[in-house]
């Protein structure tokens, strides 16, 4: 296998006062070199937990109970802390949703960029600083020589996200995990940041794992998509396939419930109800409580990922042709 990242059937649980509750279960996907994979879903579907599991950044009450995460053939789950530290920030970098809180407010921008350069690349202070200025220029920050000595509070949200990207890019990572990188930003600033990410990807041939709730961002950025619902992958395939032929009723509902700019709709189709909570997960299909095509079988038995077409699968009994007769 030549995949850069291979996540196979991981289950991550968190300790609550009701014992360990799984936040994600049986999540598998692969990511090739230079590819952009999107993970979409609504709040609580487990998309951030997935990315934190890959990075091994789970809080102390969380643990990966099952499965493996192979990065260039190495299983990250069994790595020691110090081995993981060599990979984190060096070969896999991450940018977070909230550029206001993910930068350290008491350190200058330059120092925050230099940190990983000095740690992973063994640069001295002066080299790291020079590289930091270069990096700031490459992410489109004006007056980079001055900004390098500023504190994060002096920058706007869009600028801070650029700094975050510069930090992530510092060690030329092979994989960039972007967890809702533009959610906190305005649309015009979002367009700037997405444009920057596209440029970086082309230039460095970097793989990106893009986590978002915005199907518009997915359509613009990604090659392939994984749709998650209530801790499980419900559909995956190429972007074109998924948007042309969404197959899981949840994906269809999600796409329909976005108001369209190009046309006028009298009424928005919506998905009734809410996401079930972790401790009250239905036994069968997790979407059964909100699905309009629900059958007895869906309530009793959970479907597996079934093929829709080549490289496109959905976790729904409707995909089994003989079940379609409703």
């Amino acid at each position, binding site marked *: 296998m030549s995949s850069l990242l291979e996540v196979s059937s991981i289950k991550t649980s968190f300790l609550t006062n009701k014992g360990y509750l799984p936040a994600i279960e049986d999540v598998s996907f692969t990511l090739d070199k230079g590819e952009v994979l999107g993970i979409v879903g*609504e709040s609580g579907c487990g998309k951030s937990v997935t990315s934190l599991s890959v990075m091994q950044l789970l809080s102390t009450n969380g643990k990966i109970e099952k499965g493996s995460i192979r990065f260039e053939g190495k299983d990250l789950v069994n790595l020691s802390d110090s081995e993981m530290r060599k990979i984190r920030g060096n070969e896999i970098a991450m940018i977070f949703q909230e550029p206001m809180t993910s930068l350290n407010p008491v350190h200058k921008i330059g120092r925050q960029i230099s940190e990983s350069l000095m740690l992973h690349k063994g640069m001295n202070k002066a080299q790291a600083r020079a590289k930091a200025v270069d990096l700031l220029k490459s992410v489109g920050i004006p007056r980079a020589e001055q900004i390098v000595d500023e504190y994060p509070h002096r920058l706007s949200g869009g600028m801070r996200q650029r700094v975050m990207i510069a930090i992530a890019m510092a060690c030329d990572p092979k994989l960039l995990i972007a967890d809702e990188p533009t959610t906190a930003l305005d649309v015009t600033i979002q367009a700037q940041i997405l444009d920057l990410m596209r440029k970086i990807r082309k230039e460095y041939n970097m793989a990106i794992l893009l986590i978002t709730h915005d199907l518009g961002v997915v359509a613009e950025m990604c090659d392939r998509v994984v749709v998650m619902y209530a801790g499980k992958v419900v559909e995956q395939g190429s972007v074109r396939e998924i948007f042309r032929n969404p197959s899981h009723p949840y994906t269809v509902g999600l796409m329909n419930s976005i108001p369209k700019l190009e046309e006028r709709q009298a009424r928005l189709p919506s998905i009734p109800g809410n996401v079930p909570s972790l401790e009250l997960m239905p036994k069968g299909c997790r979407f059964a409580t909100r699905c309009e095509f629900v059958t007895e079988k869906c309530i009793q038995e959970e479907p597996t990922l079934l093929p829709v077409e080549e490289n496109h699968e959905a976790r729904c009994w409707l995909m089994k042709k003989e079940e379609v007769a409703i």
Partner: protein
Amino acid sequence: MTDALLSVNDLKMHFPIRKGVLRRTVGYVRAVDGVSFDVKAGETFGLVGESGCGKTTTGRSILRLIEPSAGQVFFNGKNITQMSSTEMRKIRSDMQIVFQDPYGSLNPRYTVQQTLEEPMIIHKLYKSAAERKKRAMELLEVVGLSTSRMNRYPHEFSGGQRQRIGIARALAVNPKLIIADEPVSALDVSVQSQVLNLLDDLQKEFHLTYVFIAHDLSVVKHISNRVGVMYLGKMVELAESDRLYEKPLHPYTQALLSAVPIPNPEAKRERIILQGDLPSPANPPSGCYFHPRCQSCMDICKTTAPEWKEIEPGHFAACHLYN
């Protein structure tokens, strides 16, 4: 002017910047700087713009939740900016607000019933507790929540359900106008569409007029009849919502529309990427506030602020390109 339920005339909200031990005023943040628009009875008027453009401040100063620095607001023909606080309190039952954050805008120590009854008590709407309870139950049914959950506290509800409670509270006093300040921004798309549909149903049922404030252009377009676009405290364009999206006139509106990612990987289109960030409203640029980021900037834009003009019937814009 005559059929306008709400008429906002040159509304300004300047927040003083104070410095030093004497708290002397050293400047002003021009959060809202001369905004005018009319809202007809029964329509939904959308206000869009990016963060810091003054849309929320506009909404709040219309209700006088913050006292505007200048300008007039007419509600039903009456100038409410001149009213005393007792008069204002009476008229507030006609104008209600729904807030963005369904988590922060409900009192966590009040049950749903208490939350819904509070405005009825303040406005002395019903005489007996039984009548109030009946009305509260009615309201819950109207917004699609089960009356069996009347004695629950806000934390027992999901975000979408909390926003329904917020809407029910606004409806409790039978308002004519509801200012909805980013009512669906904190919600997931599948829940967002439920709440948008609810707002739509309620408008038909109770003949409500909405001022709908949001940053999400597709949501605003979906729900509004007319839309005003704000930039740095000023209105830059106003038109029927279909017209605005079909043929945006102001370069800012064009850029804003082109920046929205379209959920269709096969859609190809020209994208205008604005350079730079929103300038500070404490120190706005000279001339047209948008000129440092504008692609069609001319010499006149740097010195003279453009006039607010009707460029085609019902379609207003403030831009030198159309002079």
